[in-house]
């Protein structure tokens, strides 16, 4: 006997993701899901961004890694809440992990929660964590062919930070061509060039980020 089910199994994740988003919205907290391949510069971006916004905003970080707490240790100098999630081989964070991590600190005392996802350009794209914005760090040292190869990740990002641009010449990467390719995949995405280890290149990113944090605070419901 055939029984019709007709259910999208991803509702199992998105239901919890929506709960997380409602919590963020109700507290006026911006949640930023940072995704990239391994070594693209997520933690370096966080290290420099946290320092640049520290005088204005209170941050918390949820660190996703397969193993070790090395990234979390790099951020301890900021004396902010940091929750380490080790997926023990799992290739992405999911909404339930974030829901659990949010119980580990007082969300009423922060303005922005950064979620550093597991380094992977495939799997994290399928899992809504409840973030309001998804930021993709794309290092040009990975090769100029990555946007088309990993199209889903580029299509689902709100912001694409093209990182390590100081190495573009050495890597023989045409930045304009790369940006055009990203635009064709995702016309709505904000694309910014950065070198995450150089704070001077982060001005536009920080300006955008601060605007988003202010918007979240104002739209608290």
């Amino acid at each position, binding site marked *: 006997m*055939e*029984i019709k*089910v*007709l259910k999208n199994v991803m509702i*199992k994740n998105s239901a919890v993701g929506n709960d997380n988003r409602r919590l963020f919205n109700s507290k006026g907290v911006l949640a930023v899901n940072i995704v990239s391949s391994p070594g693209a510069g997520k933690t370096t971006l966080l290290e420099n961004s946290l320092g640049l916004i520290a005088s204005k905003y209170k941050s918390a970080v949820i660190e996703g890694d397969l193993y070790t707490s090395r990234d979390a240790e790099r951020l301890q100098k900021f004396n902010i809440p940091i929750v380490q999630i080790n997926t023990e081989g799992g*290739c*992405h964070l999911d909404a339930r992990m974030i829901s659990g991590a949010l119980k580990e600190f007082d969300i009423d005392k922060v303005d922005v929660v950064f979620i550093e996802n597991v380094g992977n350009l495939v*799997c994290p794209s*399928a899992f809504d964590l409840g973030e309001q914005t998804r930021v993709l760090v794309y290092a040009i040292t990975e090769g100029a062919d990555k946007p088309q190869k990993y199209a889903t990740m580029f299509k689902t990002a709100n912001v694409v930070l093209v990182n390590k641009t100081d190495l573009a010449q050495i890597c023989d990467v045409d930045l304009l061509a790369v940006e055009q390719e990203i635009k064709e995949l995702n016309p709505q995405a904000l694309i910014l060039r950065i070198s995450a280890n150089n704070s001077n290149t982060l001005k536009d990113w920080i300006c955008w980020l601060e605007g988003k944090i202010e918007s979240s605070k104002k739209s608290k419901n």
Partner: protein
Amino acid sequence: MHEAKIAEYAFAVISETLKEKYPALDKKVTKATFAIGKPFTVMRDSFDFYFCELTKGSFLEDAELVYDYVEEEGFFVVSVDVET
């Protein structure tokens, strides 16, 4: 590897659906039909592997797994065939 998590979700969705009809989950499922949506990145072989491992010893063990492809975003359990 995200197929492992999606296999868990699919198992849960099927279990919940069948529990409504057979609370004891004592009916064997002989076939499960799934639909892989775009632009979702699910590899059938990988999903097969995780789903079969996950359902060993359960009412879903040895069920035939059938796949279709659809335009909608997501991964769907379309139907299950239950022994009568």
